[in-house]
C-alpha cells in the first residue's frame, strides 16, 4: 500500500516539477549548510585539538597578561623577562623550561631571499620539551647541535620557500651563515611548517634582543602534581614582580596544557552549536516552503481528493498520500544537501591541503549523514501534516463539486 502512495506521490511531483524542484531546493540549502559547516567545524576542532594533544599533559604554559586578553598579550608585545623565567626554573617540581620568542627576518639561500618566521628555542633548557612533549622531529637529516651554527627548517621550507634547499645547504640570516642539518616533520599547520626554529642564543644574536619571551613552557617533573606546580609558579612570579619591581598587581596567565585543551574545546563546542543552530533554522525555513507547496497542492487537487474518497479512500489514506509526498520532498532535498555539503567540505579540505593556513580534514561521519537524511525526511513529514489534515477532512460531496 505504501508503495502505491509512493508511486502516486512521485507522479504528482513530476507533474508539478518546477514547483517541486524549487521546494526541494529550499531543503537542499538547509541540509547543505548543516553538512558542510558541521563537518568543517568538526575538522577544525580535530586539527586544533590534535595540535594541543601533541603537547603532553605535564606542561604548563606561562604568558604575561590576563588569559581573557590573550590575543592582545601575544600581539601587544608583553614579555616575560629573564628573572621571571629564572623564577619559574627555581620552582620545585619544574623539570625544564622552554622559552620561545619569534621574529620575522629575511633569510637567504643562494640567490634567493625570503621573509621567514624564526623561532628562538632554548636548546639547553627546553629542547627536550619540544622533542618529547611537543612532537618535534626530523623527517630528513638530524637535529642541530647547539653552538655549531646549525639549524633545522620547517617541513614546507624546502617546498614553498626555497624549492631547491637540501640538507647540508647554508642559509644566511642577517649576515650569519647557518648549516641546515634537518627538515622537520609537519607540525599540522602551514605557519609553523614555514618557520625556522633556531637556538635561542643564535636567535638573540641575530635579532639583537638580549632577553624576553612572550611565552614560556614549563615541564613538571615526574612525581609532582601539575596543579600544585602551576600554583607554585604563580606565587613565584608574583613574588618576583612585587619584590623586585614593586608592581602591586602583576598579571600572568599560568595554564596547564589540559586547561588549555579544555578552554579551546569549550570554545569550539559553543561555536559548533551556534553553526548547527543557524543551519537548522534554514532547514525550518525550507520546511515552511514545503507546507506552502503542499497547501497549494491540496487546493489544486481538491477534485482528485473527492474522487479518491468517492471510490473508498478513508481519511488515513488521504493523509498518507500527502504525507508520503511531503516526506519525499524532504528526503530528496536531504539527499541533494548531503551530496553538495560533502562535496563542498571535501573541496575546502583539498584547497586548504594545497596551500591554506591550516590542514583540515573535513569530518564527515555516518551519523552526520544519517542525521541529514533523517532530519530532512522528518521536516518534510511535519511540514506536510497540516495540509494533509486539511485534505483528509474534505467532504467528498464538496470536493467532487469543486471546479
Amino acid at each position: 500500500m505504501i508503495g502505491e502512495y509512493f508511486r502516486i506521490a512521485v507522479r504528482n511531483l513530476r507533474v508539478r516539477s518546477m514547483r517541486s524542484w524549487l521546494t526541494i531546493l529550499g531543503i537542499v540549502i538547509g541540509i547543505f549548510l548543516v553538512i558542510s559547516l558541521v563537518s568543517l567545524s568538526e575538522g577544525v576542532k580535530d586539527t586544533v585539538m590534535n595540535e594541543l594533544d601533541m603537547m603532553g599533559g605535564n606542561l604548563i604554559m606561562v604568558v604575561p597578561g590576563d588569559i581573557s586578553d590573550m590575543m592582545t598579550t601575544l600581539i601587544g608585545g608583553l614579555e616575560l623577562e629573564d628573572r621571571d623565567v629564572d623564577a619559574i626554573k627555581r620552582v620545585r617540581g619544574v623539570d625544564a623550561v622552554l622559552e620561545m620568542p619569534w621574529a620575522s627576518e629575511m633569510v637567504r639561500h643562494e640567490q634567493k631571499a625570503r621573509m621567514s618566521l624564526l623561532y628562538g628555542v632554548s636548546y639547553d633548557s627546553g629542547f627536550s620539551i619540544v622533542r618529547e612533549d611537543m612532537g618535534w622531529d626530523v623527517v630528513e637529516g638530524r637535529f642541530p647541535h647547539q653552538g655549531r651554527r646549525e639549524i633545522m627548517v620547517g617541513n614546507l621550507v624546502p617546498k614553498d620557500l626555497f624549492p631547491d634547499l637540501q640538507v647540508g645547504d647554508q642559509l644566511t640570516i642577517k649576515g650569519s651563515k647557518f648549516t641546515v642539518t634537518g627538515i622537520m616533520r609537519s607540525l599540522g599547520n602551514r605557519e609553523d611548517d614555514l618557520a625556522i626554529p633556531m637556538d635561542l642564543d643564535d636567535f638573540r644574536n641575530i635579532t639583537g634582543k638580549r632577553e624576553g619571551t612572550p611565552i614560556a613552557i614549563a615541564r613538571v617533573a615526574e612525581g609532582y602534581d601539575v596543579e600544585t606546580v602551576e600554583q607554585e609558579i604563580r606565587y613565584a612570579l608574583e613574588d618576583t614582580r612585587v619584590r623586585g619591581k614593586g608592581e602591586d598587581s602583576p598579571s600572568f596567565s599560568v595554564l596547564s596544557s589540559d586547561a588549555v585543551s579544555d578552554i579551546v574545546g569549550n570554545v569550539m563546542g559553543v561555536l559548533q552549536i551556534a553553526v548547527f543552530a543557524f543551519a537548522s533554522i534554514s532547514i525550518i525555513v525550507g520546511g515552511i516552503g514545503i507546507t506552502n507547496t503542499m497547501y497549494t497542492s491540496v487546493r489544486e487537487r481538491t477534485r482528485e481528493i473527492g474522487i479518491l474518497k468517492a471510490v473508498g479512500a478513508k481519511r488515513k489514506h488521504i493523509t498518507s498520500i500527502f504525507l508520503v509526498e511531503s516526506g519525499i520532498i524532504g528526503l530528496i532535498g536531504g539527499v541533494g544537501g548531503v551530496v553538495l555539503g560533502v562535496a563542498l567540505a571535501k573541496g575546502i579540505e583539498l584547497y586548504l591541503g594545497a596551500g591554506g593556513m591550516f590542514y583540515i580534514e573535513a569530518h564527515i561521519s555516518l551519523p552526520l549523514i544519517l542525521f541529514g537524511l533523517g532530519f530532512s525526511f522528518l521536516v518534510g513529514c511535519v511540514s506536510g501534516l497540516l495540509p494533509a489534515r486539511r485534505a483528509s477532512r474534505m467532504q467528498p460531496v464538496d470536493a467532487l463539486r469543486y471546479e
Partner: protein
Amino acid sequence: MSNLLQIEGVWKVYHLGKIDVEVLRGVDLNIKKGEFITVLGPSGSGKSTLLNMMSCLDTPTKGRVVFEGEDVSHMSEDELATVRGKNIGFIFQQFNLLMHLTALENVTIPTVFQGTSRAEREKKATSLLDSVDLLERVDHRPGELSGGEKQRVAIARALVNSPDVIVADEPTGNVDSKTGEKIMNILKDLNKEGKTVIVVTHDEDLVPYADRAIRIKDGQIV
C-alpha cells in the same frame, strides 16, 4: 427481490448564510436488488443530492437511509467510505479520471484502498478494460482518450471492486449520442448480470433502458 436501498422521509437542508435551502423535502424511495432505475429531473430539482444519499456520499439532515439492511444515516465519513468502496461503483458525467495516471492505473485506484495485492489488481483491471474493448489503451492517459473511451475506463473503474450497485450521474452527458447508446448498453448488460444500476439524468431518452423511472421536482418525488 429483496430491498437494496430504503430511503425514508429524507430531508436535506443546506445552510447558505442565513438562508436555509431545502433541497430534498421528505423523499421516500425503495430500490430492489437487480433493478435498473433512472432518476429524472430538471437541474436544481435535487436529483444530484438524492444521488449523494443513495450512493452514501452524504447523509440526510432528517430521515433514514438503509443500505443492504444497514442504517447509514448516522455513519461516520470513514464508515461511509468503507460502504462505498465495497458496494458502490461510480460513473460521473465528467468521467473524473485522474489525469496523470494511465487507464490501467485509474481502474486500479479503488482497489488500493481495499488492500488488494498489486498483481491481483492489475489482472482484474486488465480484464475489465478488455471487457470494455480498451485493451490496447491500458497505458494511455485520459488526455489521449476520446470521451467515450474515458467513460468506458470510468465504467471499468466502477466495476473493479465487484460492487452490487452502479451509480451513474449523467453518464451520457459528455459524449455523442452514438457513444451514449453504447455506454447505456454496457450498463444494461451489467444489469442483466445482476448488478443494480441507478442512472441519474435529465435525458428522457434513457428511460427505455430502465425497469422504472423516478421523477423528482422541487425536492420531492412526483
